[in-house]
């Protein structure tokens, strides 16, 4: 903070406010002792130290020394608690929760097929929302047409496997064209409404009794993945101690992470090009782009198609890895979880969707396993008045939501984002 001569002569006119990091440390400290079981406490401690240093450096400009000190005490307490239960959990059997098992479950999911599905879906959303500013709330629909494109063409139309894959990748193109033509000339909101409605229509149509012959109703379709499984080169599963994959999952993650890597390479290649620059410009102000002679509609359509194909790829992979296509898998939830992954990682960053999907699944699976173990057994760790074992699987979503809120408040740009870009918005 610079001090101008004016400030030195006259007393500071503006009201001194609590240092922002003091409040941060207090919030993190309270969260550490309650909901997050100590995980946020070291951060609270650190933020409190930073706040105290800043306040002591310029005592007349900031208030909130008391808040920072409370934050520090809470942070230290929570950190001690964290260390204690980590030691107890890992080293001894004193706790009814096997922390090693919790971490293994979390890591398995973070590196496993589920994270791949979300990473691919989020890569598509990154093109839509992150780069072009298109609000696609119907990524589930793109995934569904990808998955059903594969299943229907193999099971019902009896096409060969690769024919099914091609159809699975063409179906989202068709969906993007259908959704894009009427809505892309309008404001962004209309695309959001159209996509979320289309995704629901597709899910209900795929599950309907009337179309049972074509789509298998609510039981979905199976029996199309045999050629995919037949290509599996692994003889055995993989067990590295901290992660363990079955033979099938090992094959799926090999295929899946390869797809993710190729997709990221494609996105990186496109977004550094002038084409990517036009997309980012459309996100900022499409009238300005139009005034410079660019066909905004065509670019938005290309972006919608490309992101939709990644959505279809996510659906295709989901269909392959679990060898069945069920309409319930393509509910709106999946779209918003993919958005969550994108925002955690950082929108408009090439690696954002990847990091976000891995972290999202690590948290969801780890917390689920932890709360599951903590509430099970005759003498659960978690008192039943806080939660019982039926509530445990839901609490992980509450905690994840809380974490996302904290992320949006304290690091709105996500993990990979550029703080300066956010600062421009706050102008």
């Amino acid at each position, binding site marked *: 903070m610079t001090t101008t001569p004016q400030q030195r002569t006259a007393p500071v006119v503006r009201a001194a406010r609590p240092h922002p990091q003091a409040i941060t440390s207090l919030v993190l400290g309270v969260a550490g002792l309650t909901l997050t079981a100590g995980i946020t406490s070291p951060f609270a401690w650190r933020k409190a130290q930073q706040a105290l240093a800043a306040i002591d450096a310029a005592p007349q400009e900031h208030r909130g020394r008391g808040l920072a000190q409370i934050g520090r005490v809470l942070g230290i307490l929570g950190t001690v608690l964290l260390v204690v239960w980590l030691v107890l959990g890992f080293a001894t059997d004193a706790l009814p929760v096997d922390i090693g098992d919790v971490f293994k479950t979390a890591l398995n999911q973070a590196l496993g097929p589920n994270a791949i599905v979300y990473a691919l879906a989020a890569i598509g959303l990154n093109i839509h929302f992150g780069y072009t500013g298109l609000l696609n709330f119907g990524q589930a629909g793109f995934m569904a047409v990808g998955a059903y494109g594969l299943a229907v063409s193999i099971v019902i139309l009896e096409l060969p496997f690769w024919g099914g894959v091609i159809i699975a990748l063409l179906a989202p193109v068709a969906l993007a064209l259908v959704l894009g033509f009427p809505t892309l000339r309008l404001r962004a909101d209309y695309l959001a409404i159209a996509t979320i409605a289309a995704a629901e229509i597709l899910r209900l149509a795929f599950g309907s009794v009337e179309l049972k012959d074509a789509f298998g109703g609510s039981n979905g379709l199976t029996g199309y993945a045999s050629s995919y499984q037949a290509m599996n080169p692994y003889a055995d599963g993989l067990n590295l101690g901290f992660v363990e994959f079955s033979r099938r999952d090992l094959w799926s993650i090999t295929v899946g992470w390869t797809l993710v890597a190729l997709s990221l390479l*494609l996105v990186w*290649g*496109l977004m*550094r*090009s*002038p*084409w*990517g*620059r*036009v997309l*980012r*410009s459309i*996100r*900022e*102000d499409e*009238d*300005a*782009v*139009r*005034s*410079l*002679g*660019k*066909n*905004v509609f065509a670019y938005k359509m*290309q972006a919608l198609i*490309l992101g939709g194909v990644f959505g279809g790829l996510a659906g295709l992979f989901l269909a392959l890895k679990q060898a069945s296509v069920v309409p319930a898998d393509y509910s709106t939830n999946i779209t918003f979880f993919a958005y969550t992954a994108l925002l955690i990682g950082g929108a408009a960053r090439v690696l954002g969707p990847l990091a976000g999907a891995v972290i999202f699944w690590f948290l969801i699976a780890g917390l689920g396993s932890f709360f599951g173990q903590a509430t099970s057994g005759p003498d659960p760790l978690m008192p039943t008045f806080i939660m019982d074992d039926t509530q445990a699987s839901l609490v992980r979503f509450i905690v994840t939501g809380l974490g996302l809120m904290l992320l949006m408040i304290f690091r709105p740009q996500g993990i990979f984002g550029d703080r*300066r*870009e956010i600062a*421009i*918005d706050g*102008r």
Partner: protein
Amino acid sequence: MDADAQSTSQSTTTTGSRVDLTSVPAVPGATKPDPIVVGDKITRKFGGLTAVDVDHIEIQRGVITALIGPNGAGKTTLFNLLTGFDNPDSGSWSLNGGSLQGVASYKVARRGMVRTFQLTKVLAKLTVLDNMLLGATGQRGEKLLSALFAFRWRGQEEENAARAHQLLERFKLDAKRDDFAGSLSGGQRKLLEMARALMVDPELIMLDEPMAGVNPALKQSLLGHVKSLRDEGRTVLFVEHDMDMVRDISDWVIVMAQGKIVAEGTPQTVMQDPAVIDAYLGAHHDTDLRDMDEDALEAEAEAELGAENHREATP
């Protein structure tokens, strides 16, 4: 667009050979010797309000034309109509003889008619250089299929960057080249928008209130920039409220009021035109109200009211 051919044609058009507009009659819809834009019977209604009702308009090539008029006169709406950002209810207009009726705004820009905006539209989260590069036309790397192969567009990108840097130097923005455009001041944004429009290499550049929100010091340099656009052979049409600027740099002035063109002429003629002064500044703009006879003023006001009532009664 063939940039080379255009720049040679521009270099032949020098300040000296600029068309003398003093012989053009100072009447609304006057015929110009070499019009670049011709519009006929352009109307645009917003519900019951007729925002633009222009019978005939011609914009002379190679000069600076100012479009002035009080707030709500329809200047910006006319801008939007001419550049394809809005569709008129009726009318026809053309650029270089080619009709622009129903032509999408981006195609209008490609034909050489580029506009800026009253509220500047810089791309805040892109760097100043990226803002500039977006303006370049005919980029191979903007096609999805060649975008992936950097060797297809790298050379062109470097040429464009060099041209962008020259323009940024001219507009004194070269120090900001790697900053986010969102971090620029209001005046710098105006400059950036103008520079970016020049990346398209337009024949006709349309500036919507280039001076709004610009401090007096920067105003002088902006004036110089606008003049330099004309001196390199481009046609400039701008909307402005700042009468000093209009007097200083424009070769021709078109005055709009309530959607219609009410007067045209060289700055000197227009500024003396009583119709313009009334429409733009009000009938008593140069009299001190304290000096006026109150009774006479009241009588005049009543007469005006009476006339208005009479008009309303007989539509």
